[in-house]
């Protein structure tokens, strides 16, 4: 089964979850609006709007209203012509006004997103490189994807990391004519700003560097004539392009692209796709925009900016006084209060709505999922009293929800890497508000400290991770030279107050490739980059996962009949979080969970994990046939044809053996066969397994190495070696083929892989096993043998979504055509 790119699925899950919790996809009930109060469909009373981006409240200004009305009266509701043909006169007037506002050359665009789409492909070609700030607005990414498809080199760097930017410039300038650094003037989630002074210094130092800024949230609020945060700090650089929005504080809708030269502006105006082939801004927007631009050029704007600035100051003070975890102190009208888990964030927002305040959810993909928070905005229309009352309510509900969820405030500060104020720490100690659990937790770092019978009764027959299987894994994945071959094991058994197991699992902390669950085409590109940069650890992360990179199956025992199951899961998640911190891992993963478990879904999402798709897994049960013909008769008509033709007709060409008294050479041969398969498949892109594992499997009583050799008449080599091998773990009820190796020199002629699959099933039957776990990959093939398809999912929590975004940003076009 082809894996889907996970990021779209994750975004859907998270945002849909918000909608289900009545904090997103809301609707106003007002028939008329004239200020910052709203009636919303999911709120029981009128609310004060703290989610508006119209920071100066200009949308209610009579001059703008009249400007729009006059324009409609003069021109009608639309002027339906591309600007490539005819623009109505308002455009000329408006662009002239913007030239004054920005002291640069302007082109009006229908929206800022279309501004990016019109500008980026015109100015940037494949001799250039693009470096995107991790938090740059999504609309910039949208436009960049257009040029990526044409081969423009693009990379993502961590937010506001000018040191990394400079390192990248030094490297990329050897190869590219221009290096475009793309950032926001004011970032829309946390309200922090671009370090413009430092970037200007870099531009002065490196003539290849160009600066592309989306200053949508800075427009009107800052700078002379409201030219924005970026241009409010510095005049436009000769190597700078700025796109801004007229749909926020400017209050009219539309966008503007701002250029340092007339030639550049003219080029974009002439060739920009959104200016040639998209509809223009309509008369009403243009009429209002002209009125707004005139206000911007008057003395009035300064007073409005001052009022807004005063409100911002007041808000910062109020937040400090009420002790809320403000993620970054804001000189902008955007504020972000940390909540950590989505369920906490949504609960606070819901309560605020009931209290008469509308605030936004700061949620994935805008922020990492574990960094959910309450985002609110301040406008000129808010009074000090409204601000204080809202902040007081927010502080109250924030504390109440954390208490309800038994979630200490220290964890919120931890999630955002913020220092907790001392007074709050002391208060937490004094109030001792952590509930004591009824459950007992056994946590061991080796399976040898766990009772074998107990472990096997809970997890022994779910896959290759019975007691003996785990002992072998511990021996094989420790004291190795390469970091990826050293895993840290943890075992958890949680019992209720009468000693009944409620939850059991094992965890491994190890290095994963970030593209493991991405489509093969994406892994191909990432592997190419690893080779090119000679960095095998490029885009890898240390993860704490239930199960391990070698095991498959349901790794998590949970007694759903127990009233304590959710509490036990919370303890597990806490344990994983503390291991993450201890081992400096970047995320945690719960994998191989059943698809369609809505209750588990909701619980894990509530606790800040997002769901990602996994490849399907396969199993065969009902091994009660006794002859080959009986086996074939259990299959579908079509499959019978395939199996007879590709498997049964070749059985007599093979000698099948279980390895015994093996030599080092034989083990080396198995490893070679394994590497043949490993190097061909990127379905689940993992690191190579260590040779030590194969040596340990050869000696282990609960492992069999199934060897398929061709009879002498078919294999004329001097030394006949196996053409296929399968390393199988044997538990009481299950036969688990874990590693396969193929000699591809014989694959086409003798269909070695297909034969190997059949022989595994046959061996399981001989041993009277109930189930053969065939694992991931080769789904179409395995189904021909009657394998059942089991859909499984994983849930992940990541410290940040940087790596996920880098992997997701690998060329989409190549992914689609793969």
């Amino acid at each position: 089964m082809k894996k889907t790119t996970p990021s779209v699925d994750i975004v859907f899950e998270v945002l849909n979850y918000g909608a289900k919790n009545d904090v997103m996809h809301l609707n106003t009930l007002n028939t008329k609006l004239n200020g910052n109060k709203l009636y919303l469909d999911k709120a029981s009373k009128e609310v004060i709007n703290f989610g508006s981006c119209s920071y100066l409240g200009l949308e209610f200004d009579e001059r703008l209203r009249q400007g729009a009305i006059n324009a409609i009266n003069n021109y009608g509701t639309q002027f339906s012509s591309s600007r490539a043909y005819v623009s109505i006169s308002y455009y000329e007037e408006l662009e002239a006004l913007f030239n004054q506002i920005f002291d640069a050359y302007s082109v009006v665009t229908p929206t800022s997103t279309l501004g990016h789409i019109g500008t980026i492909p015109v100015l940037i070609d494949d001799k250039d490189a693009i470096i995107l700030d991790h938090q740059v607005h999504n609309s910039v990414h949208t436009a960049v994807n257009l040029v990526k498809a044409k081969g423009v080199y693009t990379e993502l760097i961590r937010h506001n990391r000018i040191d990394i930017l400079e390192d990248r410039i030094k490297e990329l300038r050897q190869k590219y004519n221009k290096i475009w650094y793309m950032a926001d003037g004011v970032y829309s989630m946390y309200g922090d700003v671009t370090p413009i002074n430092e970037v200007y210094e870099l531009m002065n130092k490196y003539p290849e560097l160009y600066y592309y800024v989306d200053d949508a949230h800075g427009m009107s609020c800052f700078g002379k004539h409201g030219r924005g945060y970026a241009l409010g700090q510095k005049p436009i650089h000769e190597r700078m392009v700025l796109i801004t929005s007229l749909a926020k504080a400017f209050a009219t809708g539309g966008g503007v692209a701002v250029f340092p030269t007339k030639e550049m502006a003219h080029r974009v105006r002439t060739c920009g796709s959104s200016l040639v082939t998209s509809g223009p801004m309509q008369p009403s927007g243009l009429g209002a925009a002209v009125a707004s631009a005139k206000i911007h050029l008057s003395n009035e704007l300064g007073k409005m900016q001052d009022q807004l600035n005063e409100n911002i100051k007041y808000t910062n003070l109020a937040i400090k006084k009420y002790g809320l975890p403000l993620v970054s102190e804001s000189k902008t009208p955007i504020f972000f209060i940390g909540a950590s888990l989505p369920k906490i964030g949504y609960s606070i927002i819901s309560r605020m709505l009931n209290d008469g305040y509308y605030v936004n959810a700061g949620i994935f993909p805008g922020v990492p999922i574990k960094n959910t928070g309450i985002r609110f905005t301040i406008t000129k229309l808010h009074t000090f009293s409204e601000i204080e009352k809202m902040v007081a309510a927010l502080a109250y509900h924030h504390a109440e929800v954390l208490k309800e969820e038994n979630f200490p405030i220290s964890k919120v500060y931890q999630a955002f890497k913020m220092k907790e104020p001392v007074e709050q720490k002391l208060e937490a100690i004094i109030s001792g508000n952590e509930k004591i659990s009824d459950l007992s937790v056994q946590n061991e770092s080796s399976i040898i400290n766990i009772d074998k019978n107990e472990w096997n009764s809970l997890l022994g027959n779910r896959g290759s991770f019975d007691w003996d299987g785990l002992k072998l894994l511990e021996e094989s994945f420790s004291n190795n030279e390469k970091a990826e071959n050293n895993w840290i094991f943890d075992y958890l058994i949680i019992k209720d107050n009468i000693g009944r197991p409620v939850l059991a699992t094992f965890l491994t902390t190890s290095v994963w490739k970030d593209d493991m669950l991405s489509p093969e085409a994406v892994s191909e590109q990432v592997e190419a980059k690893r080779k090119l940069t000679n960095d095998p650890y490029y885009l890898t992360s240390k993860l704490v996962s239930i199960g391990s990179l070698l095991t498959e199956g349901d790794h998590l025992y949970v007694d759903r009949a127990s009233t304590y199951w959710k509490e036990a899961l919370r303890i597990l998640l806490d344990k994983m979080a503390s291991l993450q911190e201890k081992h400096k891992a970047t995320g945690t993963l719960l994998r191989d969970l059943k698809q369609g478990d809505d209750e588990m879904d909701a619980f894990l999402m509530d606790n800040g994990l997002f769901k990602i798709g996994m490849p399907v897994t396969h199993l065969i049960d009902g091994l009660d046939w006794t002859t080959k013909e009986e086996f074939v008769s259990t299959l579908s008509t079509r499959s019978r044809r395939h199996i007879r033709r590709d498997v049964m007709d070749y059985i007599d060409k093979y000698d099948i053996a279980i390895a015994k008294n093996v030599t080092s050479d034989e083990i080396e041969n198995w490893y070679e066969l394994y590497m043949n398969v490993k190097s061909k498949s990127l379905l689940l892109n993992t690191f190579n397994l260590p040779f030590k594992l194969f040596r340990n499997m050869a000696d282990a009583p609960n492992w069999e190495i199934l060897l398929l050799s061709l009879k002498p008449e078919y294999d004329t080599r001097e030394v006949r070696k196996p053409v296929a091998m399968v390393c199988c773990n044997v538990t009481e009820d299950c036969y688990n083929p874990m590693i396969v190796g193929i000699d591809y020199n014989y694959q086409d002629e003798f269909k070695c892989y297909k034969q190997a699959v059949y022989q595994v099933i046959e061996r399981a039957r001989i041993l009277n096993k109930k189930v053969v776990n065939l694992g991931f990959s080769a789904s179409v093939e395995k189904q021909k043998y009657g394998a059942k398809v089991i859909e499984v999912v994983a849930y992940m929590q990541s410290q940040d979504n940087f790596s996920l975004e880098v992997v997701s940003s690998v060329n989409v076009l190549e992914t689609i055509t793969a």
Partner: protein
Amino acid sequence: MRLSKEEYCMFNLASRIKIVESDGIFLVKRVLNNTYEIKLFRLYDFYVELYCNYRVNKILKADPLKGKQWLSKFYMDLINGFNFC
């Protein structure tokens, strides 16, 4: 919301007037040169003087009293019956 004197000083005149009008307690008023009115307010744990040109109805300043020694000036005026309300 209680502000310290330093926090109050962060704000511009328009904001200070709002704060004083909302949270301040009027104490006493003086008139100066038949043009200026100086109102004394207690605001949280400090005092603020509002200077108003009542002829043009414009508030010119809303500064905190520099120190308690200035407070005695008002009291002295009160004791001496000098243009107080």
